[in-house]
């Protein structure tokens, strides 16, 4: 397992400039969770309605460097299950673009 | 047969009146007819009275209501005669076909009905040919013969082909089913 120093060198996937309260723990948590990804990986993030959601993707701005989706309050997991299913199906049908299919 | 023929089936949930109506639709469809086969959905518990319908025509059928003035009524379970007004709305010149061991005369009296009555002992036929109570096959044959919705010889060829398909894994039951069909065609009897 990499140590903190190594992790801090990883790609930043969640940028500043969002409107979360100064000192809020949530952006930090997001940053660190996204460090679980390797730098060449891409993610889709499903976000329930809430502070993190309204403050980080206020049209036309976004703090998310990966694909990010918000639909409603109670269904972030259900939404994501559909995205995952689409990924599997597109992969099975060989319809993903090359940059993703690897 | 150019005109629309409307048939109403009375049975009990679990006895296959709905399946029989769908089978009739299927054999008529196979001879190039326009068909409808649909049940009246209600509480479908085993044994509850159920109604199913067929429309069969040479022309496309657009009407989508239930059938209130049928040309034929088929009663798959004769105990229904006491509780359900099976002949309600039956067209003049129409007929009732009842699955029973009784004679058409007896049924006619029980129904208190003046039109044509036909009976077929589907229980006896199916138990003797198929070894169990499967009334659908003999009932279907009787209905084809009495309603004339399709020619009997066409029906015989078609039903044999469909038995062969359906029982591809147990071909020995095909002749038994055909026997049930042929006996029903012979044994259905009427009283005008």
């Amino acid at each position: 397992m990499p140590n903190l120093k190594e992790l801090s060198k990883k790609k930043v996937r969640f940028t500043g400039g969002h409107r979360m309260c100064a000192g809020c723990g949530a952006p930090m948590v997001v940053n660190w969770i996204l460090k679980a990804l390797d730098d060449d990986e891409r993610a889709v993030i499903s976000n329930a309605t809430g502070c993190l959601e309204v403050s980080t993707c206020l049209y036309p701005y976004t703090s998310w460097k990966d694909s990010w989706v918000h639909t409603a309050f109670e269904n972030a997991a259900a939404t994501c299950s559909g995205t995952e299913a689409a990924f599997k199906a597109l992969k099975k049908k060989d319809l993903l673009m090359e940059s993703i299919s690897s | 047969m150019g005109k629309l023929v409307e048939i109403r089936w009375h049975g009990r949930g679990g006895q296959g009146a709905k399946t029989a109506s769908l089978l009739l639709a299927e054999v008529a469809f196979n001879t190039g007819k326009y068909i409808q086969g649909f049940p009246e959905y209600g509480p479908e518990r085993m044994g509850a009275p159920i109604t199913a319908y067929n429309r069969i025509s040479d022309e496309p059928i657009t009407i989508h209501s239930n059938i209130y003035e049928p040309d034929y009524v088929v009663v798959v379970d004769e105990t229904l005669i006491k509780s359900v007004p099976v002949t309600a709305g039956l067209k003049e010149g129409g007929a009732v076909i009842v699955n029973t061991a009784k004679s058409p005369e007896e049924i006619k009296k029980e129904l208190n009905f003046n039109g044509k009555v036909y009976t077929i002992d589907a229980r006896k036929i199916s138990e003797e040919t198929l070894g169990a109570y499967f009334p659908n096959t003999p009932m279907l044959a009787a209905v084809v013969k009495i309603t004339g919705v399709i020619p009997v010889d066409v029906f015989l060829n078609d039903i044999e082909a469909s038995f062969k398909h359906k029982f591809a894994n147990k071909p020995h039951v095909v002749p038994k089913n055909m026997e049930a069909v042929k006996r029903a065609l012979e044994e259905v009897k009427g009283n005008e």
Partner: protein
Amino acid sequence: MAKRVSLSGNEAVAFGMKQINPDVVAAFPITPSTEVPQYFSQFVANGEVDTEFVAVESEHSAMSACIGAAAAGGRVMTATASAGLALMWEMLYVGASMRLPMVLAVTNRALSGPINIHNDHSDTMGARDSGWIQLYGESAQEAYDNLIQAIRIGEHKDVQLPVMVCYDGFITSHAVENLEMLDDEEVKKFVGVKREAPFALIGQDPVSMGPLDLPNHYFEHKRLQAEAMKNAKKVILEIAAEYEKLTGRKYGFFEEYKMEDAEAAIVVINSTAGTAKFVVDNLRAQGKKVGLIKIRVFRPFPAEELAEALKNVKAVAVMDKADSFSAAGGPLFAEVRSAMYGRADGKIVTNYIYGLGGRDVTTTQIEKVYADLFNAIETGKYEVYNYLGVRE
């Protein structure tokens, strides 16, 4: 080559879905729609389609998963009815406003309460302003044809909206009738293998979808959504023309039946139109000038075209298989009368709420509607708001 088959409406829809071979189906069963996901999950289990089937725990989750899949760039289908559609409500609006093409087969069933499993149109009429395109069909054939066209309509670059394909519960969903099915190859060619998504979660570049949209942008986005619905009118006709070339079956915004010289007309949706055609034929045989308009496209609503089609009649009865409890008629009535205002004025326009909760609609009832219309033409006396076939 087209195949002549006998199928129930639900079978026709499930087979149509199989031929379309969508990327994702996320569904939850509800009578009388259950057979659709049931048959389809068999196709998935047998490897007859490449679709990922997501078995969810509610219709809300079904629609959420569909949105997640469509946002990813997948081609998505599902099915529901009645309370199931009601539970999707929140997500219907979200999916439409995210401009995600999806196809939802709805077997129309009465909304609770009281609970009732039979047909009326209260479910989809309730969802009429959710931003979904709504296509309605009289028969299993039309449900099948609408389903295949719906894929192309929703995915069109000028539209990018989800589509409901509605047909009557039990009356159409469970009745076996004749229809013609296209070959698998023909369907594949018609709908194409891949949905062209202009942007997607799983696409060239990362995207953020579903942002907070405040007063300085929200309105513009809604305006664009409204424009997409307008664009859908043109696209619906283009796709219908293409489909007609393939099948010989003609589709438009609505079907006009014996309207040329009609004095009295009925406007109606779904299977009752078939029963009413039977009545029109009988009345025509008696020399009565009657006609019928069957609405196929309810959203977008073909207001100008409908007014044009009604401009020569003397009296129109609009039949609603849903009440809106507005104390001013049902939803179709409100639309039709408003469409006629200023375009086809001076007509008698009446409303009949009928068939709620699966009350069977008979030829006698429809004859009565035409009789009422002729009576109104002769005497000038009539009720605007009527209930048909109910015990008062």
